[in-house]
């Protein structure tokens, strides 16, 4: 395994094929990075907006849970 080029310049030029190879590399790296960055941003935004909603609802987290449970028991049962 040896370095195939005499210098970095030569590697950049790739004997005339440089533009093609490096375009492919750059675009690939960009797309792959985007694929990782996008979910990370989404993740962050989701956490932020959930936290914001919690604040807006002012402690709903504690109040809401038992209230829901009450309501989910059958309310109207008028068979028979």
């Amino acid at each position, binding site marked *: 395994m040896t370095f195939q080029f005499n210098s970095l310049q030569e590697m950049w030029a790739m004997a005339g094929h440089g533009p093609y190879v490096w375009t492919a590399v750059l675009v690939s790296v960009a797309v*792959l990075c985007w694929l990782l960055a996008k979910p990370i941003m989404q993740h962050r935004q989701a*956490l932020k907006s959930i*936290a914001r909603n919690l604040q807006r609802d002012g402690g709903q987290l504690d109040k809401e849970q038992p209230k829901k449970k009450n309501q989910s028991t059958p309310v109207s049962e008028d068979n028979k």
Partner: protein
Amino acid sequence: MASGRSWNWFHRMGSPRWFYETTGRWLPWLWVLTLALMITGLVWGLAFAPQDAKQGNSFRIIYLHVPASFLALAGYYIMAIAGAVGLIWKMKLSYMVMKSAAPIGAALTFLALFTGAVWGKPTWGTYWVWDARITSMLILLFLYLGVLALQYAFHSREAGNKASAILALVGTVNIPIIYKSVDWWYTLHQPATIKLTSAPSMHPDMFQPLLVMILALYSFYALALILFTRAEILQRESKTGWVRELAQQAHPAQSAGVTK
């Protein structure tokens, strides 16, 4: 029931929370593995692999093109299987995985097409040739776009999930047929082009970095899929207690007012 216990792991796996917490532990390792493989493969392929006798340095694009094509196709099957699991066992998590797999697969298919076109210019003298593999890739891209478009066409998330799962399954049945047909069609028309070096006949010095790059993309795929799915889980499970706690821990300043 005897079967009840052996299916336990399966249902636990279906829990978004379990998935979120478990993959959270894997993530750092997966990041390290992906980056290491990717850097090794790229440097090896771009700088140390010998150049191709006929194609010269342009052949180095293979280190991006082939792994991307691999994962693009495998990704479709992953998406379809996730969709099928969702349909059969009504597992919410697998729909989330399916939904996450679609953009990743579409992006990788685009990448395969793009690198193929860039590679085609120095090799064939033109960016686009109706080569069997490239045509199949193009159809695969359309299949991905169909699933993505259908997913977002519905107001109801559930309807979108089910519809795109069915479409993905139909596509899975069709993919082998499409590939075979396109292959056959290509041999029928036989345009005079230079055949690309196919992997098995490659020199080991060229093949080893390719193997590393394929592994790198597999690892990358797993990483991206997990990241997308985790983001999706947070959005969908935003009403559950554990996600709320998570949000409060992440942004204590914003939810500080709650306790007052």
